């Protein structure tokens, strides 16, 4: 069953949001993903995720509200529909 860990980093100062999310994704089990809630789009996170074998989908809900879904590459259960 798909499980989602929500990680709200809006109150944290750089690079804590990146530190927290890298720690969180490192412990992901099959079928699990992280939903990161951030005040801005974390452009610098993406290359770090790619290098570690993760995929992501970023969505701007508002100018200061961004949600980023992160899952392990190839984990079809954790990935949003259409994205693996």
């Amino acid at each position, binding site marked *: 069953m798909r499980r989602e860990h929500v990680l709200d980093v809006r109150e944290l*100062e750089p690079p804590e949001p990146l530190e927290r999310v890298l720690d969180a994704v490192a412990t992901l089990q099959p079928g699990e993903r992280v939903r990161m809630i951030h005040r801005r789009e974390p452009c610098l996170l*993406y*290359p770090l995720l790619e*290098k570690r074998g993760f995929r992501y989908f970023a969505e701007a809900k508002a100018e200061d509200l961004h949600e980023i879904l992160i899952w392990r590459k190839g984990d079809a259960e954790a990935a949003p529909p259409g994205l693996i």
Partner: protein
Amino acid sequence: MNPQTGLSLDQAPPILVPFRFFLSAPLFALLAALLALWFGPSLLDSRWQPPVLALTHLMTLGFLGMAMVGAMMQMLPVLAGSPVARPVGVARAVHGLLIPGVLLLAGGFLLGMPLPVRLAMALLGTGFMIFIVAAGLSLWRAPSGNPSMIGMRFAVAGLSVTVVLGLVLASNTGWAWWLTRWVQVTNLHATWGLLGWVGPLVIGVSYQVVPMFQLTPAYPKSMTRWLSGMLFLLLLLVSATFLLPEGRVQEPATRVVALLIVAAFAAFALVTLRLQLRRRRKQSDVTLLFWRFGMACLLLALVLGLAGQAMPAWAGAPRADFMMAFLFIAGFAVSVVNGMLYKIVPFLIWFHLQSLLIGVVRVPNMKVIMPEPGMRRQMWLHFAAVPTLALSALWPPLIYPAALLFGTSMILLEVNLLSAFRIYQQNAKLATKGS
């Protein structure tokens, strides 16, 4: 949003691209402090003396120029998503040309020799041209909606005007031809450099860096949309007033435009201070204090500028210019750059180590990379140096303690930056061993 729109590691420039500039900057400020110690109170007799010109350019080109060029090379890809093409080559060339260029220019001024100034013109002209073309192309390609980008575009345009005017003035020294309006062109050059390049770049970068690192609300849209463009337009108007015949029309026209420029910068300083009061995290840190101090100095410099407009006797006082310049350059610009370096240097080290050290060792915490006590010591020295410097405009012997404080503060800044960089190098070695 497409998952592939993020920054790739190939786009993030290698760490030495910004760091070669950051690590050089304090050394120029240290040289300026040594010059001030050497020449002493006589420096404050007139702003037109060769050592004053040398000292000013060591600060503006050497410290501010280096730090700002380095910061832009780093920020264009991160903030604009539009990296500078061939960042390593551009950084090497610009850095390699600017360093001897600044030293030769200062040396030429000091020794009163035309040849070093001519060489400096070639080096600085080429170095800045490469930077302006590279940054300009990147800004041209960047998506236009981002307010920081707008600020940076105007700043690069302001830098171009400053460089052209600087080359005209230097050619006058290098070839001893007679520039009839030397004083006016010098004032215009300084105005574009400080208010057209340094100011708008700080403003543009603040729109991103203040909310991001100091966890404040965003700057108001009305400000981010219009301020930089309005400032640029006002500077064009200032330049136009120089073309008017001196006398009845020129004086009030210049005064009105100067007042509007003062109002624009004051609005920026006040809004920044207000946003900082509304930040989410209440504990203060070194960067926040540097920025607050910088904004207070900017406001003081503006008040002095206004006093000059209202009381021509004050503007005509020989050392009024010195006090304003000390407050704007050392008090505002150096403080803001110094504070920003304390955020971006440890952040970049942390970021580059994150991509190097996967599965090797845990990346050191930001507070380990740049320890707070070292930053605080340097900050207090700087906070003591600036008022002493400003007061030396009233009582020139104070230039000695001011230069000592400022020079020591710059040595500590360099030590802090180098210690952080050493942590990067040590950990990067582990990565090569680990892989």
